[in-house]
């Protein structure tokens, strides 16, 4: 199967539509129904723009709601009959769209049937057909995959308005910036804002756009920086009344036009020019995030060979057996004495993650607990006499006084039930843990596909990468079910879970359905009356155990759990909390730092033992349940959707929730890169869904369980226990003894099906406002800084007018003038900015409220900028935001982070002297073709270069130089010396060429043999090879005519060094 990349305008437009639509919505309120003229007038009104701009971030809440409404409609197919655009929104969305489009119902039905019969490929084919009928033109195969990611990205976009605002300004500089005054672009940080890279210009051209100067002539590339240095006008194609017209946007109008809804084509165009950093696959930050997520960048899916082996390879990779590497490398790491990760020798006998006799321990524990329950040992028989009870060690000193003693009588039976709660809580926590682990597993798989989508978004996707993703979706197990149909085969490969093929068919490459199917599988294996056995069995699954450790990295969860813990903090809970946190932390650390099998095994065993031990204490189990819920909160959202399709309003919310999970990564990036995470309203919506779905799930499970099945958390007996103990925990009976009196009625009311378990481990999470109030402090609110459940405010920006209107160029000039940064954009040592960056940005000091603890409730005021000169600090923060935006705009090619300089990569390593510049200047001829005799004849070097710089030659089209012609022009352009039109035969006797040894050769030296010459780029005496640049020969691909090459020392006879 071959899958096309989005290499046409239509396809790219399609791929970008969701974001573009979001953008339109984002600014709709500000600018809708206004023409460009109006906008200009609007801008010219004093202060008016600032007013509008002030609506920017605050409108995100409404925007998000509107988005969600749109998504909901999209998923439910309510609002797409008239919109081909909507119909393009994802496979699920498209399917639903078809279903909702009246006459398209039949088509959608056929499509889904096709998907069931033929798997994802069928669905794709079906989608192609449907979209063809809709007249939507070409369709990107796998669009559903990408568009699902788009949905998530949109969510993220709503959180990144800070960057969006600045991106418009910075992009304007890129398109219309001044020409760098120095051809060597001395102030590199300014150069980064002035001009498009070749790749960006290429994208513009692909979209049919043209950047021209004041005379209407196409702007040219600076030969040294290899950037197009900015123009005066942008000519592009715009849809007006159904007609395509050429529109010209002047530099002065760009900023307003790009925000105008009626100029959506322009917005689409400019979004295609640069890829936001978080979506740039090869970006260093993105790589780091992926590494932390332990995504498998290159799993062996789709490889030929034994299916089971292939499955195992993928499974092992997902489990993190070879984290940070491809599944084929199987590299293990350990920590050396310096704390560095180093690869270790693989134990050849190791197969998967074998936890040895741990299985026996778990089973022993399970049997012991069951036996204790059967014997009644686990429930204490308390004396009927209240006074006697009060003297028991566990109550002595605590329950005294007549009032309490009278209450204890009421508590007596309760305590017995609470004893049962021990096993219940243990089992409950186990169940929750196991399920969330399994769900995290499913999500990790899904994330692989998201990664593929990310690659496409970053324009780094290839047909091969998409094909691999599609192939794994279609890979069949022995039952004929593909991954797209079932999640089970991963377990089948390990023979640890009943290999029940699922009857339901997933919607092809619609990843959401895959997750949903996985949820069904997990519930089938774990749910119901045999949950203890099932849960324990799953816990002994090494694959799951690996995931236990490896799925602990949901960014932000630590802060959430911290908030939760704050609420729960009551006396002894601190002990439990810290103990559990320590254990989980140790597990995480062991996983991160010591990735050997044995260490992971030991850490996991230790942590699990501790968890089991702790879970025996109901109070601790309560916390543990809550902790795990929060820690794995996002996967649990998916869990609660067991048996439920991701459709309708709930489905939309679920997707939204999952989006939060996946894009927690992006949120982490955001936190790193001057973005603002979820705001209060977004978070409340998120948690609200958690609670709703939890209640619904619990109600479903309760109906399946025998009322007297105390081994099930869903039985009526267990519900009584679970309903009462948390209440005891929550109520402060020492401060408010009267609360005890309400217990019986509370218990009774709790027996209503929908209120029982939802008030147990998860009770505290319902108190959203309390949690938020903990996270928000008055100081932050007073200063209108970003607040969030993550409590990360360090990058919030409180002056929206300044954010929207301060020219990035002015910020840089200010930073340069005030000697805060050097020409490369780095902080000048000992400057105020260096101090600010160190304290508030680089994380060298913990300035944000990341954990519980009263002492950390306030971040350092200094980081807000209100302490000294607020303008200074605002400029610092704007600068940080702008440079992160510029990072996103800079193309990242060839797996390198090219954000540091716009000059050719090779030039960075070359000396600033004549020699280095000869080599560097040679690169300007890279895009041109070879011409035998080019650069010779009667033409002087000066005349030739004048023509060249006047753009009389067309890159990629014109053949201009031969080998010695290239050497001549490079020397002339770098040094001003014309060596003349001699062929290479004259080199050995030319006075300005001095022969040096081959080992001495360095960048800029001239390699010579009879009949050919090249310029040295680098020399490796060890391997006796040079990297060179030269004009070679006419080739079918003009890009190869003039360009880099490699030669061994034997390839040339002599080396000459130019001297003036």
């Amino acid at each position, binding site marked *: 199967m071959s899958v096309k990349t989005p290499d046409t305008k239509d396809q790219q437009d399609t791929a970008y539509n969701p974001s573009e639509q979001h953008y339109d919505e984002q600014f709709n309120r500000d600018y809708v129904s206004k023409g460009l003229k109006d906008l200009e007038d609007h801008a010219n009104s004093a202060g008016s723009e600032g007013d509008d701009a002030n609506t920017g971030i605050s409108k995100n809440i409404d925007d998000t709601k509107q988005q969600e409404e749109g998504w909901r409609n999209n998923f439910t197919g309510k609002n797409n009959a008239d919109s081909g655009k909507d119909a393009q929104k994802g496979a699920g969305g498209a399917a639903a769209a078809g279903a909702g489009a009246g006459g398209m119902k039949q088509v959608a039905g056929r499509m889904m049937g096709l998907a069931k019969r033929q798997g994802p490929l069928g669905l794709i084919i079906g989608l192609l057909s449907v979209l063809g009928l809709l007249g939507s033109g070409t369709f990107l195969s796998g669009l559903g995959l990408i568009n699902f990611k788009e949905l998530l990205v949109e969510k993220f976009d709503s959180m990144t308005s800070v960057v969006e605002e600045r991106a418009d300004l910075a992009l304007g500089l890129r398109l219309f910036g001044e020409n760098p005054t120095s051809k060597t672009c001395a102030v590199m940080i300014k150069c980064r804002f002035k001009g498009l890279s070749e790749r960006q210009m290429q994208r513009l051209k692909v979209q049919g756009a043209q950047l021209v100067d004041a005379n209407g002539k196409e702007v040219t590339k600076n030969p040294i920086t290899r950037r197009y240095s900015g123009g005066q006008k942008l000519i592009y194609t715009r849809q007006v009344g159904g007609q395509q017209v050429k529109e010209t946007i002047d530099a002065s109008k760009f900023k307003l036009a790009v925000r105008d809804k009626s100029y959506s084509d322009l917005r689409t165009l400019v979004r295609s020019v640069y890829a936001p950093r978080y979506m740039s696959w090869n970006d260093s930050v993105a790589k780091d995030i992926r590494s932390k997520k332990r995504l498998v960048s290159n799993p062996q899916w789709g490889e030929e060979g034994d299916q089971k082996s292939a499955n195992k390879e993928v499974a092992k990779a997902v489990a993190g057996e070879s984290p940070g590497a491809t599944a084929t490398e199987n590299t293990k790491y350990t920590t050396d004495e310096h704390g560095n990760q180093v690869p270790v020798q693989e134990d050849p006998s190791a197969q998967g993650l074998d936890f040895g006799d741990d299985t026996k321990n778990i089973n022993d524990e399970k049997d012991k607990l069951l036996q204790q329950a059967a014997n009644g040992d686990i429930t204490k028989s308390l004396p009927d006499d209240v006074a006697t009870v009060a003297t028991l060690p566990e109550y002595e000193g605590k329950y005294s006084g007549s009032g309490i003693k009278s209450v204890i009588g009421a508590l007596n039976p309760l305590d017995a039930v609470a004893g049962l709660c021990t096993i219940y809580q243990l089992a409950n926590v186990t169940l929750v843990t196991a399920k969330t682990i399994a769900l995290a597993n499913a999500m990790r798989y899904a994330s692989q596909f998201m990664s593929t989508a990310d690659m496409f978004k970053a324009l780094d996707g290839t047909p091969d990468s998409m094909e691999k993703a599609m192939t794994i979706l279609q890979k069949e197990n022995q039952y004929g079910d593909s991954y797209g149909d079932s999640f089970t085969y991963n377990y089948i490969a390990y023979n640890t879970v009943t290999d029940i093929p699922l009857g339901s068919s997933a919607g092809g490459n619609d990843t959401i359905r895959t997750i949903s199917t996985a949820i069904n599988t997990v519930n089938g294996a774990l749910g119901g009356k045999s949950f203890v056995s099932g849960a324990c069995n799953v816990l002994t699954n090494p694959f799951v155990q690996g995931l236990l450790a490896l799925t602990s990295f949901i960014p932000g969860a630590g802060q959430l759990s911290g908030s939760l813990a704050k609420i729960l903090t009551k006396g002894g809970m601190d002990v439990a909390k810290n103990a559990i946190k320590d254990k989980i932390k140790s597990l995480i650390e062991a996983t991160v730092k010591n990735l050997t099998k044995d260490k992971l095994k030991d850490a996991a065993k230790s942590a699990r033992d501790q968890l089991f031990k702790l879970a025996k204490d109901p109070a601790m189990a309560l916390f543990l349940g809550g902790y795990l819920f929060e820690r794995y909160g996002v996967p649990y959202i998916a869990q609660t959707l067991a048996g439920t399709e991701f459709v309708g309003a709930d489905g939309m919310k679920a997707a939204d929730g999952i989006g939060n999970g996946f894009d927690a990564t992006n949120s982490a990036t955001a936190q790193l890169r001057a973005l603002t995470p979820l705001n209060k309203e977004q978070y409340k919506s998120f948690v609200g869904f958690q609670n709703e779905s939890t209640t619904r799930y619990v109600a479903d499970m309760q109906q399946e369980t025998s009322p007297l099945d105390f081994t099930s958390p869903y039985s009526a007996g267990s519900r009584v226990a679970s309903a009462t103990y948390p209440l005891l925990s929550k109520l402060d009976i020492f401060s408010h003894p009267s609360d005890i009196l309400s217990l019986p009625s509370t218990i009774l009311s709790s027996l209503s099906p929908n209120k029982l378990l939802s008030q147990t481990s998860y009770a505290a999470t319902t108190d959203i406002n309390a949690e938020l109030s903990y996270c928000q402090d008055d100081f932050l609110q007073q200063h209108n800084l970003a607040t969030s459940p993550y409590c990360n405010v360090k990058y919030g920006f409180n002056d929206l007018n300044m954010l929207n209107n301060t020219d990035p160029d002015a910020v840089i000039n200010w930073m340069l003038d005030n000697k805060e940064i050097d020409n490369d954009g780095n902080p000048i040592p000992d400057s105020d900015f260096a101090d600010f960056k160190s304290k508030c940005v680089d994380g060298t000091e913990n300035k944000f409220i990341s954990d519980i603890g009263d002492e950390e409730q306030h971040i350092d005021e200094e980081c807000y900028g209100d302490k000294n000169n607020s303008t200074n600090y605002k400029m610092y923060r704007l600068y940080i935001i702008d440079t992160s935006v510029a990072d996103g705009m800079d193309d990242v090619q060839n797996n390198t982070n090219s954000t540091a300089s716009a000059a050719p990569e090779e030039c960075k390593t070359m000396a600033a002297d004549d020699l280095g510049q000869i080599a560097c200047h040679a690169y300007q001829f890279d895009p041109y073709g070879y011409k035998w005799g080019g650069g010779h*004849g009667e033409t002087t070097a000066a005349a030739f270069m004048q023509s060249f710089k006047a753009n009389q030659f067309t890159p990629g089209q014109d*053949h201009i130089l031969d080998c010695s012609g290239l050497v001549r022009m490079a020397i002339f352009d770098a040094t001003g010396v014309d060596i003349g039109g001699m062929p290479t*035969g004259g080199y050995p006797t030319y006075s300005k060429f001095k022969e040096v040894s081959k080992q001495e050769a360095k960048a800029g030296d001239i390699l010579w043999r009879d*009949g050919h010459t090249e310029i040295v780029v680098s020399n490796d005496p060890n391997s006796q090879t040079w990297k060179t640049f030269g004009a070679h020969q*006419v080739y*079918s691909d003009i890009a190869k005519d003039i360009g880099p090459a490699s030669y061994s020392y034997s390839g040339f006879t002599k080396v000459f060094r130019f001297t003036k």
Partner: protein
Amino acid sequence: MNRKRLIIIATCTVLLVGALVAYYFINQANQAKQQSQEESSIPANRSNNELTLAIAAQAPELADNGQPVFVIDSVKKPLAGWYIVTMYQKDDPGKTNPARILLQDRGSNKGGLQVVMGPGTAFPDEETKAYGIPEPVAKELDK
């Protein structure tokens, strides 16, 4: 009856098998003959005139109004069917480096002499490999 049937079936079977065997051998012979004819369609050597005409026709930058602007200096044939032609410019000998151009003789049925790479003065490994040039040819080409 049965015996007659058996004889008929056996006869048919023998005839069928015989026909198949005969077809196989005839087919093999035809293929060998065809291959031989094709091979024989590739001349052992091409004249400089033939090479000049082929180059001028296929490399427009080396012709002016159909007339070649180059003169062949030498021809090497590192492998059967492969020609490395070294040439210099007709009007300014000595002012530019001699260039090389690679041609492959694919036989009259497949286009005859074809320019594969060049003209040029260097043929780095990366480029010859990308174009699938046989190693002996590539080595000779980039000398």
